[in-house]
């Protein structure tokens, strides 16, 4: 597959009459965007706002973050979800680099997160560096929880496509090519390079805990191989808010850091033979089945080494170590990426399950670390929502608007696809 990503840098965002990007300034047709989203009769109201890097602005509760793009001469959107199905991974996509759609609004569950655009909080989220276009969705009354979640999910994706139209006729600042052929072709080119696969675990556990490949619910499938270009070309979306710190937002699927770093090594130090989704299920049988399947796939495609990233913590730690054990016992070397729940003081056991075979592990941070955030000048969303987030607690929002939360509550803080730069040191 060959994917060309044309980047248009976004340095600022303003409201205007039409979608365009010029000189790094993205103009958003706010009324047009509102009308577009209100076409869904299950949405009662939409409010659009901007939050820029450095502003003393807090966004809460955040459900998803999506990158606005324009897919040239192809289905423009998320194939199988907001457009007809179409294979992703080949062709040209124009990307408003530095802009992000952030969906917020009272939701059915307890797992949304916080994004601070300045100060201490900004250091812990990658989305303090993007020009954020916040989309606050109020659904009509009486929706059941599953429908409510779907409505907000789709609205966020549609918003990203609407804003992505600004890129349509603009000229790229930077072009990046992502090209990997079949395993046969690539192995013929690089016969001596070790074959490396990327096993991407995904939370697939029900309401607000799901992910989708071309619109297919990952909890309904057995582990499958897929081409990395598909994930970075809009084939994968997030339907989950497992915990803000390590949920893979749609933006992070579109820009999966492990895919990028493996691509950078392809043809040089490794032969990157592709990705495998390993859904994390809620039954023991399901876990055994998926872990066996994943290890079998890796072995069959000839992997010498595998990077395994987790999504979530707690019961998925089980899948992580099971996959590692199965791979190592087949002579396949692994490196794992996971975050840890080491408690407020960092002295608790980091994982819920263990395996001696897991000798190479990158820690993407301690989700329980408590941070103190100053009051914002402006809050987009509802500040009090922080008290019911995973990582928040009753009383964690002070009278003056300052906030004490665990990293758990900060979007992308401990990303287990290695998107951010947190780690843990033993003292």
């Amino acid at each position, binding site marked *: 597959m060959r994917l060309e990503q044309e980047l248009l840098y976004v340095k600022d965002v303003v409201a205007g009459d039409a979608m365009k990007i010029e000189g790094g300034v993205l103009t958003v047709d706010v009324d047009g965007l509102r009308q577009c989203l209100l076409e869904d009769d299950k949405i009662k109201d939409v409010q659009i706002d901007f939050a820029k890097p450095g502003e003393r602005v807090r966004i809460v509760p955040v459900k998803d973050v999506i990158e606005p793009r324009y897919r040239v001469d192809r289905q423009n959107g998320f194939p199988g979800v907001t457009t007809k199905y179409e294979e992703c991974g080949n062709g040209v996509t124009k990307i408003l680099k530095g802009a992000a759609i952030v969906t917020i609004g009272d939701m059915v569950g307890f797992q949304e997160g916080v994004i601070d655009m300045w100060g201490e909080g900004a250091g812990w989220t990658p989305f303090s560096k993007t020009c954020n276009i916040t989309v606050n969705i109020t659904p009509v009354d009486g929706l059941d929880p599953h429908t409510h979640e779907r409505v907000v999910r789709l609205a966020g994706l549609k918003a990203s496509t609407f804003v992505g139209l600004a890129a349509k006729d603009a000229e790229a600042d930077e072009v990046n090519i992502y090209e990997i052929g079949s395993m046969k072709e690539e192995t013929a080119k690089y016969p001596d390079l070790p074959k490396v696969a990327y096993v991407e675990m995904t939370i697939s556990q*029900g*309401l607000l805990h799901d992910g989708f490949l071309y619109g297919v619910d990952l909890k309904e499938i057995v582990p499958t191989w897929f081409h990395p270009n598909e994930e970075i070309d809009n084939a994968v979306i997030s339907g989950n808010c497992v915990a803000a710190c390590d949920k893979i937002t749609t933006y992070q699927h579109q820009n999966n850091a492990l895919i990028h770093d493996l691509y950078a090594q392809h043809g040089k130090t490794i032969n990157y033979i592709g990705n495998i989704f390993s859904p994390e299920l809620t039954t023991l049988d399901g876990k055994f089945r998926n872990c066996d399947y994943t290890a079998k796939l890796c072995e069959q495609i000839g992997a010498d080494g595998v990077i395994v990233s987790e999504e979530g913590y707690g019961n998925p730690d089980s899948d992580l170590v099971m996959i590692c054990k199965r791979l190592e016992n087949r002579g396949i070397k*692994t490196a794992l990426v996971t975050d840890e729940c080491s408690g407020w003081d960092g002295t608790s056991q980091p994982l819920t399950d*263990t395996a001696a075979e897991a000798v190479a592990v990158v820690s993407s941070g301690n989700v329980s670390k408590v941070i103190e955030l100053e009051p914002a000048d402006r809050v987009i969303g509802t500040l009090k929502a922080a008290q019911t987030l995973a990582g928040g607690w009753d*009383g964690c929002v002070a009278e003056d608007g300052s906030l004490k939360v665990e990293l758990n509550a900060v979007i992308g803080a401990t990303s*287990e696809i290695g998107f*951010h*730069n947190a780690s843990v*040191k033993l003292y």
Partner: protein
Amino acid sequence: MAKRVIFYLNQFFGGIGGEDKADFAPEFRAGEAVGPAVGIAGGAGDIEVVGTIICGDNFYGQNEDEAREFIAQTIKEQNPDILVAGPAFNAGRYGFACAGACQVANENGVIPVSGMYVENPGLEHCRAFSWVAATSDAAAKMRKALPLMANLVKKLAAGEEVTPEGDSYHAQGRRECILVEERGSTRAVKMLLARLNDEEFETELPMPTFDEVEPAPAIKDLSKATIALVTTGGVVPNGNPDRLQSASAQQWNKYDISQLDELKGEYYTVHGGFDPVYCNEKADRVVPLDMLRRLEKEGKIGKVHEIFYTTTGTGTAVANSEKFGIEIGKEIADAGVDGVLLTST
């Protein structure tokens, strides 16, 4: 201003005598660095030696309260910033006494430093809050131990960062979350490449090992037994009156269920780690009160305990979980409960 350092030694290293003087009552030598303290102070840079406490190992072992009171009193009078105990190498009684000295120091806001061999039984009593240099097992290696301890004193006095590998102390077990230069994905790819090329690498997360627990004896007569329900499924009365957290629980709660035949309609879940819809339809799917009541009515169990205990088991630190388990367990045991059904999600 130079940091004030106080030393703690046993009767042998304090120059009092050998085993025959192990019951030596504690004394404070003001202004003096005695025995090994000289070597430590000498290598610790700009510090002020406040003095040395000398106490017999047996005195400490047999009069712990009195010995600790002496140390505490001396600390109050002398106002040190750092207390240095030992090195104790592998000596058990000495290690235990040093650990006690470190505890007293810690309780009084004084930085504790020591030196022990990894198997010294005193180590586990103080390593979590002290900087204990990793020494060998024999006092014959004193010359190697002193610079390690001196280095720790010097750096801690200067407020400099110390690490277990770089500064040779037994890791306290504190995992500090920090921001680093490279993002996680880059570090992971580098780590895998190192493994594939048989190069050295260092894991960022050593795998934990878990405990074994002694099984409780079986209930002799189930038909007379009181059974309690406990859950980590975050099941609480409607409205979550005690504001149990959705993750990373800081509390457990208890509720009177003596008047209920089922939780359905009255209870729901605040647990943020699983799809709550099915539990919210009928919380008995997570906490099976209805079935336990049936067994009670049928005489298969004696009684359902009136109080039900709940907390949230996602992102909840193991340390908190242990604490909750001990506290709930004590209450349940005191109430004469015979068995517990613990459900988790």
